């Protein structure tokens, strides 16, 4: 691992620049309606693409992953906050994991 530091510079440097350059250099407000619409929708699209299908496999067992998602969906739909929903999802997944462990 002698080239750890070179790797680190590439890893951290490229990640930083790809985030900071657009954020720092774009200061004017974008008027174009299509671009504004695109920027409005992109966060929801990114999060959805990250959830599906990776979340099914996040816990290592599809059953507990899906259980966590269902519990999360339920409470998110009921308007609960981020922390509440995140913890509820974990508990949902944990209960199914526990069940599978006991059985």
């Amino acid at each position, binding site marked *: 691992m002698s080239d750890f530091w070179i790797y680190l510079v590439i890893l951290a440097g490229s990640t*930083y620049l*790809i985030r900071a350059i657009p954020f720092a250099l774009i200061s004017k407000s*974008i008027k174009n309606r299509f671009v504004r619409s695109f920027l*409005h*929708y992109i*966060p929801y699209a990114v999060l959805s693409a990250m959830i599906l*299908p990776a979340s099914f496999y996040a816990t290592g067992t599809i059953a507990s992953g899906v259980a966590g998602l269902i519990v*999360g969906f339920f409470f998110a739909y009921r308007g609960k906050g981020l922390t509440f929903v*995140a913890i509820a999802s974990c508990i949902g997944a944990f209960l199914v994991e*526990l069940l599978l462990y006991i059985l």
Partner: protein
Amino acid sequence: MKQFLRGLRGGFPIGLGYLSVSFTFGIMAISYGLEWWQAVVISMLTLTSAGQLAGIEVMINPGQYFAMLISQLTINMRYSFMSIALSQKASKGFKGIKRWLLGFFMTDEIFAVASQEREISTKFFLGLSVLPYVGWTLGTLLGSLIGNVLPTIVLASLCIAIYGMFLAIIIPPAKKSKPVILVCALAGILHCIFYYVPLFSQIPSGISISLSAIIASIVVSILFPISEEKGAANE
């Protein structure tokens, strides 16, 4: 100060989610042959999940600098879009060096929470970044040092936290807006196609996530452009 505290509170669930995710990263880094301090330094300077994971996979082999650069650029391409989107919402005083410094904290989750604001102040964004950064660093440290102590089912259950958080971010706005439901469904289905269809499944997930999101957003932007004056408030 009020803005900072509000940001701090907003970052709490993210920090909690990061603690569990980076814990897993710490364990993996050790299993890939890194030292605990190397895992921590990577997390402190990079602050990204998919990119770090891909990064330590490349690091196993010596001299793969170009592969490292290409994989990072594709996996992290989505951050550029997020930065552009938030640049439109940053308050008047949030510019110059402040943006160069705080741009470092542009993660998926910090972005998602910040994008719900009408206007993002420097103090709010700073507050929002603190606990996720602490959680990410601490989780990596703990995972790389004591990762093998926790029972596996507890560890496995924690990995769903981040997705629960994503749901809490997208579902409330989706309830109020049909185009948001459409863009979510489209992006999710597209990424499933990328994931399950053999021809596409070779594509690294960083690229396929970006592609799915970009295609879905373009389609929905054409079908349902947001109104001129109201901008993002058109729900």
